């Protein structure tokens, strides 16, 4: 369609439509990030580096940066250990029940970090209902062991292990089976094959997965907030939060610099991994047809037991502890059959106005974000696929940015952008709309990519056939493209909904009284000592998430490959 003579009417008028869709998308998705960059450099008034130097040389900045690097680095190391062990065992060996194992490993990724932290806190420490139930709780007054850098590292490691797992498993599937067969023909045993053939070949995916885990851990707010703030251990995201909550929008220029600092560290991390990757890249030649299946022999049963025991410890145990806490009548009281009560559940789901409001807000935000993104993404993905031009390709490359940058960076960017709406005296700060705008920017790519994947697989002849029998563009989109892209669009919408319902990092900075989200309320309840209600609320959200994940899983075979994040 890119050839020669312009003509009136017909398909050409579509090309003029493209900028009208691309422009608002680009503004909403990328505008805030650009605005943040400007703020960091100018400090709001003119180009100067003074302001940058002031913030960067302050001791608290250095300490928080160091803490961020320690916890994100340690967490990444742990994620790589867990994720790699699972990926190698699931992708390469003949263990059974792989599907269930993978689903369970993915659940921690979909559960909001502050709920993970809350659940683990219910599993350790002197007030743990679960430990009391078993009679092994430490004596009262002994410290909560998770309120420490070690605790943060542990939970970050578990939370992001699935990122390493998914990237590595995708990489392992690309390794030609005949390379492994050749190694075996040369006389290498299973362990030697893994050590000398598989490990070096999968190193690039391992590094890429590690980089993703590092960037995500760096931006994580829920875990360091729940575990670090009580211990006085601040990372960059929690430092930004404490400044902004303590002093209000006056400190915006300052926190903008901190946000840029996180963004810079994240980008350095990604660039570093790319540099390592480019030196270690292998051109893999051959068919990646049949999946590798090394036999574990007698070790299979112990390995299976080990993996499931691990899943039990990182998933089932904390959730059981959370459930136990949600059922006790008062904090510190041991749980018995006699005193178990659903009082807290009733309280958070039906009585308390703030939790009900939070449910309403979160569901409204998640539904609106999913619906708006769905409505924009479908025609946009179609235009980008069928009427690709330079503008759409640039947007395609940049649209990942708001999702890849730490959430706290995007939040600050959104506050800066919407504090004073350009050309008006209006402000979105303090309203629910600023959260919605931030969600739209952040989750755009979550919705766009699955739809793009399914439209790319669509034979253009399907639409040409409809055109030749007389269907205009609108009808073609409605009757042909929409039904065929619908399964992926639904999966994308559920993913956006899931991620948005869970969201804390962005809304923690953007909420105000009346616009609390679920993530914020759990954090606030725990912060003010209402642990039982926090647990009940958290548990209800976990059930909702598992239900939604199950819904996506049930439709798994109707989606194109790569749509469901936990099934690469």
């Amino acid at each position, binding site marked *: 369609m*890119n*050839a*020669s*003579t312009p*003509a*009136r*009417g*017909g*398909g*050409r008028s579509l090309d003029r439509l493209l900028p009208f869709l691309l422009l608002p998308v680009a503004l909403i998705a990328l505008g805030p990030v650009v605005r943040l960059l400007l703020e960091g450099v100018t400090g709001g008034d003119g180009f100067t580096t003074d302001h940058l130097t002031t913030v960067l040389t302050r001791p608290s900045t250095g300490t928080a940066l160091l803490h961020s690097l320690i916890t994100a680095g340690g967490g990444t190391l742990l994620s790589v250990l867990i994720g790699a062990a699972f990926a190698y065992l699931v992708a390469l060996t003949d263990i059974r029940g792989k599907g269930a194992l993978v689903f369970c490993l993915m659940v921690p990724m979909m559960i909001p970090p502050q709920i993970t932290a809350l659940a683990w806190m219910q599993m350790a420490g002197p007030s743990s209902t679960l430990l009391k139930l078993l009679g092994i709780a430490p004596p009262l007054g002994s410290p909560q062991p998770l309120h420490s850098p070690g605790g943060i590292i542990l939970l970050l490691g578990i939370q992001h292990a699935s990122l390493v797992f998914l990237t590595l498993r995708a990489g392992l599937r690309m390794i030609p089976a005949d390379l492994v067969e050749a190694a075996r023909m040369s006389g290498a045993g299973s362990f030697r094959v893994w050590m000398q053939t598989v490990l070096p070949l999968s190193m690039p995916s391992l590094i890429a997965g590690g980089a993703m885990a590092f960037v995500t851990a760096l931006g994580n707010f829920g875990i360091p907030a729940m575990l670090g703030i009580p211990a006085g251990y601040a990372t960059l995201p929690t430092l930004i939060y404490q400044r902004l909550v303590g002093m209000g929008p006056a400190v915006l220029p300052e926190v903008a610099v901190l946000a840029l600092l996180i963004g810079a560290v994240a980008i350095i991390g990604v660039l570093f991994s790319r540099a390592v990757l480019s030196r270690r890249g292998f051109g893999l030649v051959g068919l990646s047809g049949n999946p590798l299946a090394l036999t574990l022999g007698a070790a299979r049963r112990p390995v299976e037991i080990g993996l499931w025991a691990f899943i039990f410890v990182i998933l089932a145990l904390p959730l059981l502890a959370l459930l136990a806490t949600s059922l006790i009548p008062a904090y510190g009281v041991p749980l018995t059959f006699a005193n178990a009560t659903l009082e807290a559940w009733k309280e958070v789901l039906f009585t308390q106005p703030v939790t009900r409001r939070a449910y309403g807000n979160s569901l409204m935000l998640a539904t609106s974000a999913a619906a708006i993104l769905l409505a924009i993404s479908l025609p946009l993905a179609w235009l980008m696929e069928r009427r690709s031009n330079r503008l759409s390709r640039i947007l395609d490359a940049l649209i990942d940015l708001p999702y890849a940058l730490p959430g706290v960076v995007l939040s600050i960017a959104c506050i800066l952008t919407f504090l004073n709406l350009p050309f008006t005296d209006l402000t979105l700060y303090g309203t629910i709309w600023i959260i919605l705008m931030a969600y739209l920017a952040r989750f755009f790519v979550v919705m766009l990519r699955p739809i793009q994947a399914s439209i790319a697989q669509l*034979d253009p*002849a*399907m639409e*040409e*056939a*409809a*055109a*030749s*029998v*007389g*269907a*205009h563009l609108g*009808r073609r989109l409605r*009757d*042909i493209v929409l*039904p*065929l892209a619908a399964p992926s669009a639904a999966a994308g919408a559920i993913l956006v909904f899931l991620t948005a319902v869970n969201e804390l990092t962005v809304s923690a900075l953007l909420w105000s009284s009346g616009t609390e989200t679920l993530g914020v309320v759990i954090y606030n309840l725990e912060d003010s000592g209402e642990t039982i209600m926090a647990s009940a609320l958290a548990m209800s959200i976990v059930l909702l998430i598992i239900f939604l994940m199950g819904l996506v899983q049930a439709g798994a075979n109707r989606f194109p490959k790569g749509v469901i994040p936990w099934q690469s």
Partner: protein
Amino acid sequence: MAELNFSNLSKKFDGVPALHEINAQIASGEFVALLGPSGCGKTTLLRLTAGFEHPSSGTIHLGGDKVAGDGHFVPPEERGVGIVFQSYALWPHKSVHANVAYPLEVRRVPRPEREARVAEALALTGLSAFANRMPSQLSGGQRQRVALARCLVFDPRAVLLDEPLANLDLALRASMHEVFSLFHRRTKATMLYVTHDQGEALALADRVAVMEAGKIRQFAAPEVLYREPVDCFVAGFVGDGAVVSAGITGQTRENRLVVNVFGQEVLSRSATTEPSHVCIRPESITLCNDAPIRARVLSCTYLGGRFRLTLDAAGETLVAFASQRAAIGETLGVKLNDLWAFRDPGAAVVMAKSLAHA
């Protein structure tokens, strides 16, 4: 039904010419095949006719209306042209009935009339029993017929077929030939049929346009293409046989031109007095031991009822039919009659190209 008219039609993709100055008239109700090797521009011509591509220059007229050219462009949905795709492009989420009914739904045809016309189209293509099936539950030949029914149901002004049999097996192709012929007889539709299979083109079409490198080399009835090719490309691409260079003698005898082939004087039909080549079809060769032209047998293939021989005569490869098996390496006498002589100055280049495609 409408006539179709291409005038000085050219198309370039990113500056690379795909079609060059196409001029052709297709009469209303005519069945025309576009025949040529892959990359010759035949599918581009089809897509320009359908309105999926914009011409770089030139015009297309459909039934007297200008549909493309001179700053004017009618989009595909307003051309009333039906198309059957190589991949069939059936909508997988619609049943056979819904696929066939869609063109009428788009046109807001009232339901009773719609149902009647869909039933008629399904009956004509032998699909009445499959109306409620989904496309994924049909065989290749059945899908092809659904695509045809979907095309037929809205009485298009012209029907375009893009290599419709390429994805079917040999036996099915033969039966689909009959379906297309029947379809054409019943509907009297103007049909444009793209194929790279000369057997299909010669069997189905009223006229065949042989295309090469973005140009129409010859546009004529199948028997004319076979007996009187205009140049070496057409002679080599259509039908079996050989093209060899011919010497001019300047004489005529019995209303035939006398030309010099393999050092012998032979009679030939011709449209020119100064031919450069002769086309020797297998039917033009009689094998007899006392003929002056000697040829060595290179291969012998049994075709059922007769043998096909390839022969080496003075470095040229000829094709002949024989009633008896011949031994490879054996030398036979070759008698030539009823040849066709033509003039093709650019022959050397074209021959090399046609061999590359063979």
